[in-house]
């Protein structure tokens, strides 16, 4: 029989190669081949193959056994040493684990918050294909961005642009008219979140239906879809399908419940309770606002695009469609509209247009929060590195012995990484425990309602794993490289002294920690300063003791004057005034042609309709002319008041303004004369500059402002409530205090300041811990040094100063290099406010002093103890 090499053998060989060292490969495989061929010739194929297979298997098993067996043994040893070290250096371990678990807990919180914010609207299966149409209106020099659009563009785009597969418009009932309440069984059942929606709504937004079918739910006129919670509240456990709700307005009348969807999650920008089919609208209203009017924009229009649609291409086509339908008409009045498209999933964090469905968050704050979390992690990792390196001299002997017994550098590196991993795993568990137990507190801080299962969401777990690996790598890498480099003989023979280089490294880590701590303290101070500034600033109107009532339909509306008079009969209510907006609430804008201006250069001015008592209620000051007065009723119908800003915008002096005419081209009213100029006041938050405003008379508005005396507030309120129920039974009285409400405008800044407060504290705390451990260690290291100095006549006080100096120097150095950067950054932040506080250099000094205080406080005890020890104790063994 001749020997024929088989392919199989080659394959096996390739596999075996993994276990055979490179130098032995050639001869070894030659030998096995030769023997194989001999067996093959002598005994046949089967025994030869058997032999080969047997030996191959055997060697693999042996290899695996030997390698895992020994690595297990070594692993057990590493574990043992790691835990022994944990126990032996209790203080160090405690500080490390405390710092790490605190920072991990903080990072998990921030992570959850960010994850939640980023998850907005992503739960729709087709979320990436849903877009919202927005528009920019250019009128003269002004440009206004709206999230709302007119009615016609949606259908027009869907019909004429092939990429637009489907459109759906929704409109809040209150934005096309008054807030008309819903009725159930002829009883007013007032509620919020009532929208009209196109029948295609559920094609785009694929909500889950509990009752009814998405395809047909909004098809018929007079259909209404509820959310599960609302349905339950209205009808209890009954089957809500076919139940009747009604609305008296817009020709809507009775509506049948045709569908119930699952309650909306919190992380959607579009929160509604009721969706009424758009066809329920009275036809004449519908025809006007949906098809012909390209200028009136109460709708939010969403489209679903083709998968491969090119956004800029779609926008270009939208421009064409717009030009075809309405471009000319707009150009005539000096306006230009531009439609754009934005991702639905971007709305919550990146969209800040007029008329958003809800106040959106800011992506920059999300970035800021991630940076802060990262900084805290860096501080904790630096602690870890620092303490490990500081202890390196203690570990040197162990490393030396290990090397003598045959450990190679790789083994030592693994060991140290392993140790840092163990510590970080412990901290991770502690951190998670902290997160779970502090979740309610976190929820109350952030205003979210996250539950514990949220933490165990796969994305967050993945990130935690990443965090685990990253932290152990970052905190383990330097100690591992450093310790594994030790020369075995030197470690055993001499006492290792910490080298200069290592000292520099340690110091720069401490500098880094204090750079972060000082930055955070300083940022906190500046944010708080700015908040205080905004809260204490004189707003130019009287905001104390003003309550605002939201006007609702019913007799309060129809008999507004009577209601007002009735309220004013109470001696505690000194003033009352209806207006369409109050300070802190949004205002409408209208376009005006002022006297002497070109017809095609309209000015956009914020417009508020107020009654005669508005000026008096808010104690606004007139700088020129007269306020509205009820003795000249007919004349006032043709009068405007403006603020100083408007006069300035139009280039008129205060006196010149009186008697000038203005024509409102939005409402197409005849020209009216300016009769007075109001001194500037802050109608909006201090984040915004004072805008030009114009006031006209109207006896009823969305809000009723009551100026009440400081005494008997609760009696006054119950009086108001009583009268309200008389006038509008069945509707809840909704009111708020103006000053509190105005401060709500600074909620995002409040949140930011809370974040900074906690994190600055955490940063300082963790850096302090690190410094404390470092001081302890240095004091221990220098006992002999101090002993000798004392023998030679040094004073304890001098020694304390000597040791403190090194720590304080580090902090001072950190403060010097931090200053320009953080000063610049905080100025950048402040520049987003129209009215801002100046950064006082003292607040920087204060932050540095705080950091120094922490440094002294944490190091003093150990240092003094070391300095006051008896030199005999430390030098006895020399």
């Amino acid at each position, binding site marked *: 029989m001749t*020997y024929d*090499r088989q392919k199989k053998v080659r394959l096996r060989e390739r596999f075996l190669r993994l276990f055979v060292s490179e130098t*032995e490969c*050639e*001869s*070894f*495989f*030659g*030998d*096995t*081949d*030769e*023997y194989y*061929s001999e067996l093959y010739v002598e005994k046949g194929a089967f025994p030869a193959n058997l032999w080969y297979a047997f*030996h191959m298997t055997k*060697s693999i098993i042996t290899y695996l056994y030997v390698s895992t067996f020994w690595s297990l043994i070594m692993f057990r040893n590493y574990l043992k040493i790691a835990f022994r070290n944990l126990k032996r250096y209790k203080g160090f371990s405690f500080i490390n684990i405390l710092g790490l678990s605190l920072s991990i807990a903080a990072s998990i919180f921030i992570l959850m918050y960010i994850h939640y914010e980023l998850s907005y609207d992503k739960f729709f299966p087709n979320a990436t294909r849903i877009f919202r149409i927005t528009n920019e209106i250019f009128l003269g020099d002004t440009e206004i961005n709206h999230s709302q659009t007119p009615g016609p563009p949606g259908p027009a785009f869907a019909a004429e642009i092939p990429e637009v597969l489907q459109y759906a418009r929704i409109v809040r009932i209150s934005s096309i008219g008054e807030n008309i309440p819903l009725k159930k069984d002829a009883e007013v059942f007032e509620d919020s979140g009532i929208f009209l929606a196109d029948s295609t709504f559920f094609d785009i937004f694929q909500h889950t239906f509990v009752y009814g079918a998405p395809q047909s739910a909004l098809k018929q006129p007079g259909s209404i879809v509820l959310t599960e919670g609302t349905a339950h509240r209205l009808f209890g456990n009954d089957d809500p399908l076919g139940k009747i709700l009604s609305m008296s307005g817009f020709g809507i009348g009775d509506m049948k419940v045709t569908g119930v969807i699952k309650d909306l999650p919190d992380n959607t920008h579009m929160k509604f309770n009721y969706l009424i089919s758009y066809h329920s609208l009275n036809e004449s209203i519908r025809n006007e606002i949906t098809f012909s009017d390209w200028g009136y924009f109460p709708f939010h229009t969403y489209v679903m695009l083709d998968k491969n649609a090119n956004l800029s291409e779609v926008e270009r086509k939208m421009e064409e469609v717009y030009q075809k339908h309405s471009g000319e008409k707009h150009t005539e009045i000096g306006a230009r509209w531009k439609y754009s498209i934005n991702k639905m999933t971007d709305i919550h964090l990146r969209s800040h247009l007029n008329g958003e469905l809800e106040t959106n968050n800011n992506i920059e704050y999300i970035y800021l929060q991630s940076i802060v979390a990262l900084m805290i992690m860096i501080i904790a990792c630096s602690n870890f590195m620092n303490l490990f390196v500081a202890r390196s001299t203690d570990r040197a002997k162990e490393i030396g012995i290990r090397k003598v017994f045959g450990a190679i550098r790789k083994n030592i590196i693994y060991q140290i990484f392993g140790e840092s991993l163990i510590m970080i795993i412990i901290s991770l568990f502690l951190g998670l425990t902290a997160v779970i137990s502090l979740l309610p507190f976190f929820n109350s801080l952030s205003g979210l309602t996250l539950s514990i299962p949220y933490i165990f969401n796969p994305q967050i777990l993945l990130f935690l794993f990443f965090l685990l690996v990253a932290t152990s790598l970052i905190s383990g890498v330097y100690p591992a490289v450093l310790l594994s480099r030790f020369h075995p003989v030197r470690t055993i023979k001499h006492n290792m002294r910490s080298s200069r280089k290592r000292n520099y490294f340690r110091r720069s880590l401490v500098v880094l920690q204090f750079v972060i701590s000082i930055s955070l303290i300083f940022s906190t101070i500046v944010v708080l300063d700015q908040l205080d500034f905004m809260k204490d600033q004189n707003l130019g109107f009287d905001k104390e003791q003003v309550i605002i009532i939201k006007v609702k339909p019913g007799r309060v509306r129809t008999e507004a004057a009577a209601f007002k008079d009735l309220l004013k009969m109470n001696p505690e209510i000194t003033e009352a005034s209806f207006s369409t907006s109050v300070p802190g609430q949004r205002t409408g804008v209208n376009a005006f042609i002022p006297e002497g201006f070109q017809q095609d250069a309209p000015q956009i001015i914020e417009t508020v309709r107020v009654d005669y008592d508005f000026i008096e209620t808010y104690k606004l000051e007139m700088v020129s002319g007269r306020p509205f007065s009820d003795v000249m009723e007919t004349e006032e119908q043709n009068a405007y008041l403006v603020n100083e800003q408007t006069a300035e915008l139009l280039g008129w002096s205060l006196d010149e303004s009186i008697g000038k005419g203005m024509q409102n081209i939005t409402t197409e009213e005849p020209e009216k004369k300016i009769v007075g100029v109001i001194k500037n006041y802050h109608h909006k938050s201090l984040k915004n500059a004072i805008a030009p405003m114009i006031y006209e008379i109207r006896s009823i508005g969305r809000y009723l402002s009551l100026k009440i005396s400081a005494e008997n507030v609760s009696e006054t309120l119950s009086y108001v409530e009583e009268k309200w129920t008389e006038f509008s039974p069945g509707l809840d009285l909704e009111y708020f205090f103006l000053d509190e409400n105005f401060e709500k405008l600074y909620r995002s800044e409040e949140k930011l300041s809370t974040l900074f407060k906690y994190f600055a504290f955490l940063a300082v705390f963790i850096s302090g811990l690190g410094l404390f451990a470092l001081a302890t260690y240095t004091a221990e290291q220098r006992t002999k040094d101090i002993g000798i100095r004392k023998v030679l006549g040094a004073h304890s006080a001098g020694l304390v100063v000597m040791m403190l100096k090194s720590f304080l120097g580090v902090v001072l150095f950190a403060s010097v290099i931090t200053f320009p950067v953080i000063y610049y950054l905080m100025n950048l932040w402040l520049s987003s406010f129209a009215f801002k506080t100046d950064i006082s250099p003292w607040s920087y000094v204060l932050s540095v002093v705080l950091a120094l205080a922490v440094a002294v406080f944490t190091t003093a005890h150990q240092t003094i103890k070391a300095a006051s020890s008896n030199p005999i104790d430390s030098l006895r063994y020399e």
Partner: protein
Amino acid sequence: MIPLSRREEQVLLAIWNLKDNAYLLSIKKHLSKLTGSNWPLSAVQKPLLQLERKGFIKTHMGEASPVRGGRRKKICRISPIGIDALKALRKEQEVLWQEFLNIEINSINKK
């Protein structure tokens, strides 16, 4: 003096015996034949590597043949230190054995 294990000693002697044709497989066969029990390749491979590391043998790559899949042999040759080590071992063994043999032989004679 670097010690030699029993296996190493056997392999070293086999190499000496095989002269110019000492390589893994031939050593295995030689030893299997002489001792009458099967020596697996690994039983030879390991002492060979040890011997090489200790410097008792010198190796060089020999010729290739198709039956080896075109791969060369690693020919082993005993080095002067190897010879010395064998001699030293032998001497040591003789001394140790001497006592044993004397007593055992005497006891046999007595019977």
